[in-house]
């Protein structure tokens, strides 16, 4: 019961990443792609925590922590470039 629960939720979050990826390939302008990557990164952070629960290892949570802190810097750098002020 628990195995299928975890697999269904993992595949649902993976479907979310896939939808963001379709928007990344379709998006007409560069800010569309930045929005798609930002959403994909947040979904991926939740997915990493969920994979730590699936593998039952606590060290995998550190990857999600580093990801949650550092993905913000990349998106802000892209935004500052678009605003012409880096």
């Amino acid at each position, binding site marked *: 019961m628990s195995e299928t629960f975890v697999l269904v939720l993992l595949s649902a979050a993976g479907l979310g990443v*896939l939808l963001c*990826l379709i928007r*990344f*390939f379709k998006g007409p302008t*560069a800010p569309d*792609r*930045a929005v798609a*990557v930002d959403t*994909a*990164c947040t979904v*991926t952070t939740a*997915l*990493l925590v969920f*994979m730590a629960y699936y*593998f039952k*290892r606590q*060290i*995998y949570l*550190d*990857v999600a922590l*580093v*990801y949650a802190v*550092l*993905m913000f*810097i*990349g998106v802000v*750098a*892209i935004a*500052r*470039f*678009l605003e012409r002020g*880096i």
Partner: protein
Amino acid sequence: MIVIVTLVVALMLSAAVSALFFKDLLSAVIASCLVSLFASILFLFLQAPDVAMAEASIGAALITAVFMIALRRTKRYEE
């Protein structure tokens, strides 16, 4: 397991090939950010969390910031 790894590698390759064909170089940098995201998931599935941590920090933050400073000095669109 092998199905998930194949799917992640296919998505990573599609993002990397799309980075080659964009005329807007900002979109190419965003695509390389996406490649590092999938590479981090792949390293986590292959049970190497320290490599995944290094890949996430370098590929997400550092490469994007350095490429943004480089694009500031040069042109954004290639012809």
